[in-house]
């Protein structure tokens, strides 16, 4: 009997494995190795350079949490820029809002989108919406010449090692600041506080965001297939506070169906464990 396992090293001494029923795809693009596996426990899953990006089973948590908190704070968001996110999950969530007029998606690797369309119709369906425009280029380059154009920028990046590195730099955050309107919000994938290497990247991201944005907060979610399961997101903005400015009533009247996010959880998500709070306080 086959004993085929996918393993990811969460640290050099900790390994996370999923029993694989079949490898569906593997290719090396100009930027990274893209693989798709199938499994009984998590369904299909996508990895880039061997690192878990999403599984059919738990992607809803990540995508709901990266998309909706900002929308619940500012339901008047009209123009959105998403950087990374070649799987389409973040776009799918945002297209649920009829009030959003335009979404630019900037993904550096065309092949990630192609592979997602082929193997993950559940997330890639987001690209079908007429308001969505895909751009295949460097995220920093795209945002560089833009001024006061977006109400929301979502940075749905890979880890800071590899092609996502640029999306964790101060110059990138600064260019995003310039590209945002005066009530603009930047949400980013903010790594994990638990394992040392992830925590280092997390702290660096927070420090750089706090140097650029007047408001820089962090919130959390539980994502089973990411290292330690405890994952953070950044909420940086020019004027809006994620809790004080939460528009729970208005958001709830939209009646959107969610599996993870709700406005009570929104409040709780910003209540961080003490050790995480201390790490963040050290950086500003």
């Amino acid at each position, binding site marked *: 009997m086959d004993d085929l396992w996918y393993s990811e090293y969460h640290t050099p001494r900790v390994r996370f494995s999923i029993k694989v029923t079949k490898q569906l795809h593997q290719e090396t693009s100009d930027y990274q190795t893209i693989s798709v596996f199938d499994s009984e426990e998590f369904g299909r899953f996508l990895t880039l350079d061997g690192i878990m990006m999403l599984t059919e089973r738990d992607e809803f948590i990540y995508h709901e949490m990266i998309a909706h908190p900002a929308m619940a704070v500012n339901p008047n968001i009209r123009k959105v820029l998403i950087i990374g996110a070649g799987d389409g999950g973040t776009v799918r969530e945002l297209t649920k809002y009829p009030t959003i007029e335009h979404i630019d998606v900037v993904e550096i690797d065309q092949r990630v989108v192609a592979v997602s369309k082929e193997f993950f119709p559940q997330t890639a369906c987001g690209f079908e919406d007429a308001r969505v425009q895909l751009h295949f280029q460097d995220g920093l380059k795209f945002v560089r010449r833009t001024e006061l154009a977006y109400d929301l920028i979502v940075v749905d990046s890979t880890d800071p090692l590899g092609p996502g590195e640029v999306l964790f730099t101060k110059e990138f955050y600064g*260019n995003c600041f310039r590209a945002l309107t005066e009530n603009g919000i930047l949400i980013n994938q903010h790594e994990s506080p638990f394992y040392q290497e992830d925590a280092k990247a997390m702290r660096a991201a927070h420090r750089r965001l706090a140097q650029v944005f007047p408001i820089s907060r962090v919130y959390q979610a539980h994502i089973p297939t990411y290292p330690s399961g405890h994952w953070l997101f950044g909420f940086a903005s020019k004027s809006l506070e994620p809790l004080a400015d939460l528009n729970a009533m208005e958001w709830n009247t939209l009646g959107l169906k969610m599996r993870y996010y709700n406005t009570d959880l929104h409040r709780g998500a910003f209540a961080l464990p003490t050790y995480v709070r201390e790490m963040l306080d050290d950086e500003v």
Partner: protein
Amino acid sequence: MKDQTRAPLLEALERMRHDRLVPFDVPGHKRGKGNPQLTEFLGERCLSVDVNSMKPLDNLCHPVSVIKEAEELAAEAFGAAHAFFMVGGTTSAVQSMILASVKAGDEIILPRNVHQSVINALVLCGAIPVYINPQTDKRLGIALGMSVTDVKETVAKHPAAKAILVNNPTYYGICSDLKSITDIAHEHGLVVLVDEAHGTHFYFGREMPLTAMAAGADMAAVSMHKSGGSLTQSSLLLCGPHVNAHYVRQIINLTQTTSGSYLLLSSLDISRRNLTLDGVEIIEKVKRFAQYARDEINAIGDYYAYSRELINGDSVFDFDTTKLSVNTLELGLAGIEVYDLLRDEYGIQIEFGDLGNILAYVSVGDKNKNVERLIGALGEIQRVYKRDNKDMLESEYITPIVMMSPQRAFYAEKISLPLEECEGKICTEFVMCYPPGIPVLAPGEKITTAIIEYIQYAKEKGCMLTGPEAMDVRRLNVWKGE
């Protein structure tokens, strides 16, 4: 035509490694085994070829086999009659060509924007500098190339001069009319020396500015470790057909180590092979990167990344488009300030910043995303730090007043005075402003108010001033007098 796919030094070192000679010679680390921490840090392969001269590996001071072959291959690749492998940096190549060409009391014509190694050579040999003021671009605040008219006039005024030294290209990528200058100099019996530290790639790229050897110059110092890809401190000294190479070797051996590093030597050999075989492609890629970055930086506004539009047929005869030089004055920031911001705030280390310009070194080792980061960071610096530019210094060129030879002043009786009291005195030491390492004062020159102000301003802007005994440059050593 020799077989340029060969690398005799690399091959000899591999043979040596393969033969597993038992080392009872220096270096004492014995292929790294005696220094495990160093071996761990640098790698076993590296330490295994850190060896001494021996018969199978030839001897740098007296090359007869594999070093000779490697030098001959390099000479052919560069279109030179002879090439010397140098292990003391391009500084030693520059100094050797000067020491081989002029003696005490001889005049040598040179532009002021020379590297400090040139004037150091004059302290060593006692030759007297005759400076040609480089033309300057007032707007950019940089020294340009030598004007042919200035060369003609200076040569006519100094009929006894023995040599002329040309900086080509400058750090900023500016080239002089090397062919005309060489022809004029040769008509008057001058030896033509070219500091070609920043021009290695000219020998291998397509549509590049003219090289020293192609222009007929007598000697050229080429920094293989800059655009050529060899290890830091390795360099080449090229000689034309009318130079007595054996005498040049004797001069080199006056100061060069007798334990030439095989790490450096093999890096020269491998880089020469690489450039000969793939140089065109490599340099085209660098040009594309630099041009892309130039266009994008110019689109930000307030920055001026200059290029061939500066060409004026004389003091900017040609421009090296692989150089990414950017003027920052419109931004209200000195180049050195942008240089510091890039490193401290954005984690980007560039080559240098002077008062009005920065230079980012672009090479084959660059990646798209890093070029994007540089452009993105410059955009951010504009957004966050831009300020009124009315207080910016216009130009940094100050005409030197040579009162005595650098050697005489350097070795003379001297006294130390506070900087502000030095006006009118003769300086006996160097004051260099880093970057870019061009002398503000050389030994034997008169200290003027303009110079004192310039030193104070450069200090304020965060430039590193080096040279004087008083390392903080609050005092200068001056000539005590008769």
